[in-house]
């Protein structure tokens, strides 16, 4: 049996003393109880000092008992489950938990970088901006890595997370955020209606502040009994879902909420296969009750960051909820009534409170009286001018202050090991702020509150600065009921915390020495704020960014209001005129993996396969992703690498015959009496006079006149076309066409239907293509009967087919469209009839090579965002007799300049060389810096030309044929001859092929 930890109170608390848990802290083995947080278990052992600060590496202790914790950031877990930057105040203690401190090297007690603390006169706000200015090139290589090493948070494990995460969409009529007294009352009232209600609480226990106090009663019964009753009744309502361990981290538009549910705590393993560790809920709830409570503020004074200093309410929480004493001798420093509440609560729990230091000159009332009766010394009109200690708190200088908060001579030095501070309370209004709610300063309660709640949202309890328990419960019940159109239930007598804080405006004790921290996590001080204002950063947004106040992972939950207070004092402006900075989602740091959910690895995005996919797999094809499609890239034979496979496939098409799976080409059916007129407007070439049975290659431009997509248009009938698009461009093109139809040309009678997958397609190419296909079809493939750029309907192997005589290789080509269920069978029949010609299946890489030999572009590869048809040498496809989308854009003077980047062919002087795609082109030796005149867009080794060749975009390219240009390859200039982008069969004689 382990001895009870020194600072554990003998009784009380919401902990299970029957469950003793062993855990490790920085290599030390310690014990705690079930129900402890890591922080409370450490405090039970008297361990306050748990980390080093961000910039100065000062010793830091556990400061709070909740999500607002700025100091106690720890790394928890082992291997792939190691998670950095967790707040020890939120980590539920579990058996075997492994936690280590962060940002200290070589150890927490002896940290080399704590030298920063002594160098601090040279590290003012903006130090990095001012110092690491030049040379600019040093920033990435030297300054940034150095700063990152010294000013760091925890490190990621570097290993894959073995856990899974889940996303879930959900709906409710009412969302209640916060499971404290107000939230419980709201959920209970709303739940009575039978409508769907979701209650979320970030803690694993419901109850909020009720857990941290004693002696409160609701409806005539002890708060603890009322809490149990509410939980029981909510659990019995099928329409109410209570989600503990769940943070509402964001409020989005239209009643959308982001919730993160932590299903398993650190140190516990999954119980079901594939069960998630965390679940991200995307909840739609049109109405909400925000019962998020309030966060206590620190006081700002010299060395207010010493381990042993905590928020007063947090000290009370540790005593009452976790049965842990914050120290042996506690002093409370406050500027408002709640410090007295906490002091009394500590005393009731058995903690010795020596004194209360109150900035207000004349504190009075029942609480002060009771404290005096308990033997507590009260210092009215005093402040703490300086805390003293090193790794822990030793004593305090308590000094009288003037009305500006400036410490005066005199006062006393008082020893203590624990200081509980209260600088007032800040309602948690992050979620309304995410929705753009305006906030205003409430002088009475000394806090910012929401001026007008966003539609559908009610803000109650501490979040609305209603700090009295009775008021919070009643507001919650009323809001919950009104969210479902009911009347609020009446509550009986409620006795609990009083609401009025009577908060002093002094939260900053100005002394002569020592750092007075405003933002503990980012190490920014009151002096930094003053400096920022002196240097002209007056707007609070500028002060924030210059000093980084409020920019840490806690988003200034403790710091912001004190910072605004100080700016207000220095500038002599009212709080409302200083204004606030913007809260943004997420409310607390949120696991990135939970956003991804199961959309990882194989399930990152849908993978689309063609009817011929498995057939290609059996042939050993390698695949490449094109958009969401998996396309056969090349079909290597035994022992072949990609290069040799592509050379073999390409040669086979030139010399005999080959075919590829073209099923992924986008296909859109265009129908209606205005179909021809519509296509005539979106393609650059004329479509009106195209006869049925004809095909045409067409270009689509955007409004700027640059190339958008290309494809083949086939006319089935007067009022019926089908058009093809690039594989990746299909959804974009359909959306673009719909946009024109639905917004600009609503008078045109046209319907568009995507039919991409209604037809599987094979592209059969090569001089023997006719010989191979003719035996399988009833269509006469003769050159005259079925000319180039025509299509025919008929049958292939008994399957209904549309055959297009088109070619993307420069060879005789047929594109065979047929029912997907026939595709594999037809492919196998082609292999059979083509066997005597050594028919060769080829992939996308050979297709790319073959088309490049003919100078055919690939939209998206050989053009860029500014390329016009003219730049590509395709002005012949642009009608001068009609208007079309992009015509006026393309006709602007700048779009027709001669020095634009234009498509050219490139032949490296070294014939064996294949230029890397993307390399820059320039003149001469290319000694940097040199003007980049263009770049290589496509480049291959041609099995037919027996040499490397390329295409590229080059300034004035059209006029430079015959000249030499240099390509930059691995730092060297490679001379290339500029030629027209057509390397083979310029007269198109090969398109005829051999007769059947």
């Amino acid at each position: 049996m382990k001895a009870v930890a020194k600072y554990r109170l003998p009784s009380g608390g919401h902990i299970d003393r029957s469950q003793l848990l062993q855990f490790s802290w920085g290599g030390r083995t310690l014990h705690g109880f079930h129900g402890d947080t890591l922080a409370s278990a450490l405090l039970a052992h008297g361990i306050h000092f748990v980390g080093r600060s961000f910039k100065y590496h000062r010793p830091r202790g556990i400061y709070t008992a909740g999500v607002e914790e700025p100091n106690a950031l720890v790394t928890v877990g082992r291997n792939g489950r190691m998670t950095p930057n967790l707040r020890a105040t939120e980590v539920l203690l579990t058996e075997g938990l492994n936690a280590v401190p962060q940002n200290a090297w070589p150890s927490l007690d002896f940290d080399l970088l704590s030298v920063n603390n002594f160098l601090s006169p040279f590290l003012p706000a903006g130090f990095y901006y001012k110092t690491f200015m030049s040379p600019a090139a040093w920033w990435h290589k030297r300054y940034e890595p150095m700063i990152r090493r010294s000013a760091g948070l925890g490190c990621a494990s570097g290993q894959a997370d073995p856990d899974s995460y889940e996303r879930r969409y959900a709906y409710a009529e009412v969302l209640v955020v916060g499971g404290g007294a107000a939230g419980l009352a709201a959920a209970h009232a709303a739940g009575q209606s039978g409508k769907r209600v979701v209650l979320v609480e970030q803690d694993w226990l419901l109850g909020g502040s009720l857990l941290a106090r004693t002696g409160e009663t609701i409806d005539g019964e002890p708060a603890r009994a009322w809490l149990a009753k509410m939980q029981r009744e909510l659990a019995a309502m099928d329409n109410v879902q209570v989600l503990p361990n769940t943070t509402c981290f964001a409020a989005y538009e239209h009643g959308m909420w982001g919730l993160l549910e932590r299903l398993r705590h650190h140190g516990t393993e999954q119980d079901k296969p594939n069960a998630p560790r965390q679940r991200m809920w995307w909840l739609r709830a049109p109405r909400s009750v925000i019962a998020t409570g309030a966060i206590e503020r620190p006081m700002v004074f010299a060395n207010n960051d010493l381990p042993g200093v905590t928020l007063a309410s947090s000290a009370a929480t540790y005593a009452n909820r976790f049965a842990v004493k914050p120290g042996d001798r506690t002093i409370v420093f406050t500027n408002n009534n709640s410090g007295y509440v906490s002091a009394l609560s500590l005393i009731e729990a058995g903690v010795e409170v020596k004194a209360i230091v109150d900035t207000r000159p004349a504190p009075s009332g029942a609480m002060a009286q009771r404290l005096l009766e308990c033997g507590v010394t009260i210092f009215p009109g005093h402040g703490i001018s300086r805390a003293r200690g090193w790794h822990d708190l030793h004593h305090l200088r308590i000094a009288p202050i003037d009305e500006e908060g400036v410490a005066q001579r005199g006062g006393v030095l008082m020893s203590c090991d624990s200081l509980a501070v209260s600088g007032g309370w800040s309602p948690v209004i992050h979620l309304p702020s995410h929705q753009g709610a305006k906030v205003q300063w409430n002088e009475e309660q000394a806090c910012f509150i929401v001026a007008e709640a966003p539609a559908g949202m009610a803000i109650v309890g501490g979040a609305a600065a209603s700090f009295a328990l009775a008021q919070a419960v009643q507001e919650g019940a009323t809001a919950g009921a009104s969210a479902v159109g009911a009347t609020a239930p009446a509550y009986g007598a409620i006795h609990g915390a009083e609401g009025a804080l009577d908060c002093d405006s002094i939260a900053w004790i100005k002394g002569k020495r020592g750092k007075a921290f405003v933002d503990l996590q980012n190490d920014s001080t009151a002096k930094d704020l003053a400096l920022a204002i002196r240097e002209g950063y007056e707007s609070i947004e500028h002060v924030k960014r210059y000093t980084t106040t409020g920019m840490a992972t806690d988003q200034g939950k403790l710091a912001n209001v004190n910072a605004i207070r100080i700016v207000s004092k220095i500038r002599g402006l009212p709080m409302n005129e200083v204004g606030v900075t913007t809260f943004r989602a997420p409310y607390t740091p949120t696991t990135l993996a939970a956003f991804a959910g199961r959309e990882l690895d194989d399930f990152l995005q849908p993978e689309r396969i063609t009817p011929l996919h498995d057939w290609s797999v059996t042939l050993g094809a390698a695949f490449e992703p094109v958009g969401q499609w998996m396309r056969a890239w090349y079909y290597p034979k035994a022992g072949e690498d990609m290069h040799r496979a592509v050379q073999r496939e390409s040669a086979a098409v030139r010399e005999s015959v080959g075919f590829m799976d073209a099923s992924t080409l986008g296909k859109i059916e265009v129908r209606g009496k205005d179909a021809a007129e519509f296509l005539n407007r979106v393609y650059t070439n004329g479509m009106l006079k195209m006869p049925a049975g004809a095909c045409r290659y067409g270009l689509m431009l955007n409004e700027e006149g640059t190339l958008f997509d290309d494809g083949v248009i086939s006319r089935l009938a007067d009022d019926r076309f089908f058009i093809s698009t690039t594989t990746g461009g299909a959804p974009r093109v359909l959306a673009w066409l719909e946009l024109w139809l639905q917004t600009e040309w609503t008078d045109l009678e046209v319907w568009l239907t995507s039919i991409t997958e209604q037809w599987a397609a094979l592209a059969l190419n090569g001089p023997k293509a006719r010989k191979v296909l003719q035996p399988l079809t009833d269509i006469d493939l003769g050159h005259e009967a079925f000319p180039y750029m025509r299509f025919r309907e008929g049958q292939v192997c008994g399957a209904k087919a549309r055959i297009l005589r088109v070619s993307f290789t420069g060879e005789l080509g047929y594109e065979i469209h047929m029912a997907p269920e026939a595709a594999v069978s037809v492919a196998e029949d082609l292999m059979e009839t083509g066997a005597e010609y050594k028919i060769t299946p080829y992939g996308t890489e050979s297709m790319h090579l073959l088309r490049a030999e003919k100078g055919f572009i690939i939209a998206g590869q050989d053009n860029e965002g500014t390329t016009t048809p003219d730049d590509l040498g395709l002005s012949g496809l642009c009608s001068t007799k009609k208007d079309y989308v992009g015509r006026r854009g393309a006709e602007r003077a700048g779009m027709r300049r001669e020095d634009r980047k234009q498509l050219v062919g490139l032949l490296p002087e070294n014939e064996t060389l294949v230029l890397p795609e993307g390399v820059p082109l320039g003149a001469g030796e290319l000694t940097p810096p040199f003007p980049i005149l263009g770049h290589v867009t496509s480049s291959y080794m041609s099995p037919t030309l027996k040499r490397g060749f390329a295409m590229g975009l080059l300034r004035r390219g059209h006029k430079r044929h015959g000249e030499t240009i240099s390509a930059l390859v691995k730092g060297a200039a490679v001379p290339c001859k500029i030629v027209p982008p057509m390397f083979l069969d310029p007269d198109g004689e090969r398109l005829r092929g051999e007769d059947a």
Partner: protein
Amino acid sequence: MKTYQAATPFADTAHSHLVGGQAGFRAQTLWPAVVVSVRGSEAVLEQFAEAVGVSLPPVTESAQGGNTGFLRIGPDSALLVQAPIQDTGQATGQDTGQATGQGIGATGEALEAQCEAALSAGAHGQATDLSNERVLVALGGAEFTTVMAQFCPLDFDSLPVGTATGTVVAQIPAVLHHSEDSDLPWRCIMRRSYARWFLNLVRETARPYGVVID
């Protein structure tokens, strides 16, 4: 001339196996199904509805006329769906093995023609057979909503029988139809290329609840 052998899009889908205890989620491929897209104004859609013997349902609702479901997925668009004839109360789940020349499209084109023939002269409407393009998967089980909620943003609890709506299922554009089938009430219609990936995803997602794919 040769005659082809028909292949189904689900040829390689692992069938009828239970993953993870009891089957909280079930998926059954319904092949081959007829799917025809019809487009037109309200008045034109009414003519199409009449052609298949139903009255035009409101947007995101459906009507059933014999074996033909009329799924009104938009103000100007609907899908006509005929699930495969079920002889034993179970879908066949396999292809007929007989080549029709156009796959299921033979029936689809007949329905397409039937619809267009029903149009009044000059009406601006269109019926397009998509039977080869779309596949139909029936979904259900005690944990249906739990599983679907992980990749589909619909409020399933509020969608009564008859609902037909275009949505996104696991990033895939799809149409969901809440049919009268009490066993596997939900029908998911998506492009055939997605089917295998979708069923793999379903198998993984539903694993903690037990899953059967037929």
